[in-house]
């Protein structure tokens, strides 16, 4: 094997790793955007949805020995119900829902979920079996886990489902209408509160899926939510808040940059790289690379 070959293999390997991490950031960012669009707030409990998804899946597959498909569905439902409860119990009853109040509530909820997860699942990290074989596949000299392919496929499926839902279903159109102009939507007979609840349900569902598919690779523990949430937030800002397709591209990009940074600079700086990128975006182009500055001005902060 000569020098150029091994460089190419490294690049490929980092690319796979980056897209795999980036897919998770992309899903977290999509969750952020859904709630941001319907309420104008950042839901800081988004990372906790991911953790809950991962841990619940561990319990159902490893302790109860359910099949992957069945456990997958149950886990997503469980986290969706958690999301709905969160909205009904903590967001909906707020008398004067200012942005800052709601954001602080989401921080409180994230701490509660984290605490509850620690009590229930303990402090250790949990292993989960892969969806299919754990035998790495060879791809031009680089290796790729079947689980990584699952992650790519599920991200792709989610993006397609997202586009179909928001463009071709009445409920999706109503949610978009609510995000663009709340008053006009109410006037058109749309129950805006219901749309907010739905956005929490959907973003909890996406968070759960992200947690489920990444757990076999990273091993989930109760405290991972904050970092996952932060990276996902970085992706959401990079892609332009509220722009979910931008978030997907930005999430994958962030993951790839992180992986190359870890590979060529030092893996110690991996988390720092994502945060430095987030800072630079906020300094230079706070509307994100795909967001329009006009849309930014219209939002509440």
């Amino acid at each position, binding site marked *: 094997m000569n020098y150029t070959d091994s460089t190419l293999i490294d690049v490929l390997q980092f690319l796979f790793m980056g897209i795999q991490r980036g897919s998770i950031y992309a899903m977290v960012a999509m969750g952020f955007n859904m709630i941001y669009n319907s309420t104008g707030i950042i839901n800081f409990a988004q990372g906790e949805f991911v953790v809950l998804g991962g841990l619940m899946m561990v319990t159902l597959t490893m302790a109860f020995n359910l099949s992957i498909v069945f456990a997958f569905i149950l886990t997503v439902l469980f986290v969706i119900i958690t999301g709905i409860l969160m909205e009904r119990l903590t967001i909906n009853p707020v008398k004067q829902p200012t942005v800052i109040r709601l954001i602080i509530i989401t921080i409180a909820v994230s701490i509660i979920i984290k605490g509850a997860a620690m009590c229930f699942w303990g402090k250790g990290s949990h292993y989960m079996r892969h969806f299919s074989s754990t035998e790495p596949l060879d791809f031009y000299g680089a290796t790729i886990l079947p689980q990584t392919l699952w992650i790519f496929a599920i991200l792709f499926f989610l993006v397609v489902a997202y586009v*179909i*839902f928001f463009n*071709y*279903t*009445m*409920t*999706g*159109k*109503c949610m*978009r*209408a609510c995000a*663009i*102009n709340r*008053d*006009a*939507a*109410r*006037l*058109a*007979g*749309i*129950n*805006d509160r219901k749309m907010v609840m*739905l956005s929490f349900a959907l973003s909890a569902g996406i968070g759960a899926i992200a947690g489920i598919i990444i757990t076999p690779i990273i091993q989930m523990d109760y405290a991972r939510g904050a970092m996952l949430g932060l990276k996902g937030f970085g992706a959401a800002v990079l892609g332009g808040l509220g722009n979910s397709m931008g978030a997907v591209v930005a999430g994958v990009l962030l993951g790839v940059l992180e992986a190359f940074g870890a590979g060529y600079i030092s893996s110690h700086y991996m988390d720092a790289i994502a945060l430095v990128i987030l800072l630079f975006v906020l300094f230079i182009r706070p509307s994100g690379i795909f967001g329009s500055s006009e849309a930014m001005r219209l939002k509440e902060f």
Partner: protein
Amino acid sequence: MSNSILELEVLCKNFGGVVAVSNLSLRIEKGFITSLIGPNGAGKTTIFNLVTGFLEPTSGHIRFSGRIVKHMKPHTIASIGIGRTFQNVQIFPKMSVLENIMVGRHLRSRAGILSSSVLPPFLRKEEKLIRAEAEKQLHFLDLSEFARVPAGSLPLGNQRMLEIARALALEPKLLLLDEPASGLNARETIAMGELIEKIKQMNITVLLVEHDMELVMDISDYVAVINFGKLIAEGPPVEIQENKDVIAAYLGE
């Protein structure tokens, strides 16, 4: 009791110490065009906000089709048959013109969240039906050529038409139009007047707030004049034009 669709009974609305609407009683006759006029700040838009549930009255009642409307959210009020447009156009600028109207029809579809999101698009008759109805509405308003265009890119006159179309998609019994002609040029204003008369022929009662007196006197069956939140005159346009109180309110004493 006559054939009234909307009744305001000693309606009051205060904002802190400011009285925006005071002891206002008014009946809107079914099937006619009634205009609400008055100087700026007289409380016209406040009345619209009260009727459509964006504000709660301080005291008094609003009765729609004989039923008292109280503690209802705007979307519920929309569902019982009151449509509305705003003074400054409120559309969904990033959605296509057709989608704007489809959203307006959403209440008239029976499909719930589940059936509309779980079923694949080609199996959804409901959505096709809504699309077809929305296309009909566009045709009625001569906006068919713009169906796929983002609503925000239309000229103001057409945006207003679109807002009205969306309100009509609700199939309301009563339509509240808040200054539909403001910002329109002479030709567009005439078209707006014709549209409002067409809406009346569809058996929809229209309540109009408008500053363009020519348009008001031209198309209204009844005119109610409001000043400082109080009703100072009501009657057919001809009577109103000669009413001393009205002239005083507009020109100053």
